[in-house]
């Protein structure tokens, strides 16, 4: 009994971790009337439903009248839930132990499809076409993890399978937009990959003097957040990013 309790406490405490930092997704997922968030978002609007994930629960709110969100179904997900990414009527939920897929075609009534398990790591997810891109990070909050980009074939939503794993340095958020993929490498910079072959990203550029944690790529403009500022780059030229502006972050000294 005691052991069970301690194990429970351990799992519970292990379940809270790398949820502070956001990341990205492409325009293609936006619902009518909704905007675009990062890949580590815990709030998202899909259709007429606002979905919130807490560490253990998926909550649906009916926002068909956007001014009057109305509480709907609650779904228990397990522990260590970090991110939610809607794509083509499905919800891709990143947790510290894997990727959970829900069918959200019935508004506000998500239906469980599958879980892809991996080692314990932090893991935001973005999806494009039949592929999910997941970063796994070994951070202080997510012990035992690896630093990887996993590419997962989700063409069969009930049986996702990994098709490629690529070593990374310290991957945080990520964003995908057509033939380009961005990976935040934390204090180790920002990477842009050519995604002409969606299962074989080719590194185009690695900017090392930016500390990056979160990106939103949209219409050839990449918004990057990091410790030093909010940078905006044009990626119209896929060969190299062009800095457009920087909003400085002014930490309290």
């Amino acid at each position, binding site marked *: 009994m005691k052991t069970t309790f301690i194990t429970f406490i351990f799992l519970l405490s292990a379940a809270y971790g790398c949820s502070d930092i956001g990341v990205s997704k492409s325009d293609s997922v936006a619902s009518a009337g909704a905007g675009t968030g990062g890949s580590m978002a815990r*709030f998202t609007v899909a259709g007429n439903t*606002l979905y919130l994930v807490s560490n253990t629960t998926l909550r649906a709110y009916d*926002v068909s009248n*956007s001014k009057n969100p109305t*509480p709907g179904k609650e779904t228990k997900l397990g522990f260590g839930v970090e991110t939610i990414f809607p794509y083509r009527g499905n919800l891709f939920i990143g947790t510290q132990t894997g990727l959970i897929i829900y069918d959200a075609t019935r508004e506000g009534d998500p239906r469980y499809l599958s879980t892809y398990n991996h080692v314990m790591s932090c893991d935001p997810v973005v999806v494009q076409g039949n592929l999910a891109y997941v970063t796994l990070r070994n951070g202080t909050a997510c012990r035992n993890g690896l630093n990887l980009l996993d590419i997962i074939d989700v063409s069969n939503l009930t049986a996702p399978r990994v098709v490629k794993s690529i070593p990374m340095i310290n991957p945080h958020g990520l964003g995908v937009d057509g033939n380009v993929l961005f990976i935040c490498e934390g204090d180790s910079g920002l990477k842009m990959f050519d995604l002409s072959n969606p299962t074989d990203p080719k590194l185009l550029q690695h900017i090392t003097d930016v500390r990056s944690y*979160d990106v*939103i790529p949209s219409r050839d403009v990449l918004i990057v957040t990091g410790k030093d500022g909010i940078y905006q780059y044009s990626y119209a030229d896929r060969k190299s990013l062009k800095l457009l502006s920087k909003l400085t972050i002014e930490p309290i000294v």
Partner: protein
Amino acid sequence: MMPSLQTKLPGLLLVAVLLLDGCNNNRVSPTNVSDTRDVYRPIYSSYDAVRSIQTLAPRPIRQAGKIYIKDGFLFVNEIGSGIHIVDNRNPEKPVKLSFISIPASRELAIKDSILYADNAVDLVALNVADPTNVRLVKRIENAYPVTAYPPMRNVRFECPDSDKGLVVGWKKSDDKNVNCWR
């Protein structure tokens, strides 16, 4: 005369059990002065203060959290305190328009001109059509369970006391005499 250990023990156990319960997900241990982990204390606020949402003048970004874009505007969460609204129609020259003070907020999403944010234990819907005059259109109270521990890992902290108000943040403390950890 000091009571013997035998007479104190049941009382200590009771206190330990109560503390454990009060800390929810986190273990309670006796104070250990040689413990070098960082120590945090809760920052309390009244429900009234937490539930006050205001549109303020633009201010410096101190700690950027989640970001969100909608119709040429960029929304930047200031971790734990609110949302900066930035006119980003020209990404070469973003202009900060206002700061929406939303105590204890970390998350956001938008549909139409309504921004949804967490406000400590509540979910709020805000009309952001005019970024300089953001209006609360709906508040769903107690949409979230109270969080009884700091977001940092491998730290010790003072066990929150709900009688002191709502925990809206955590600050580092030099006082090592605390009983909760995670």
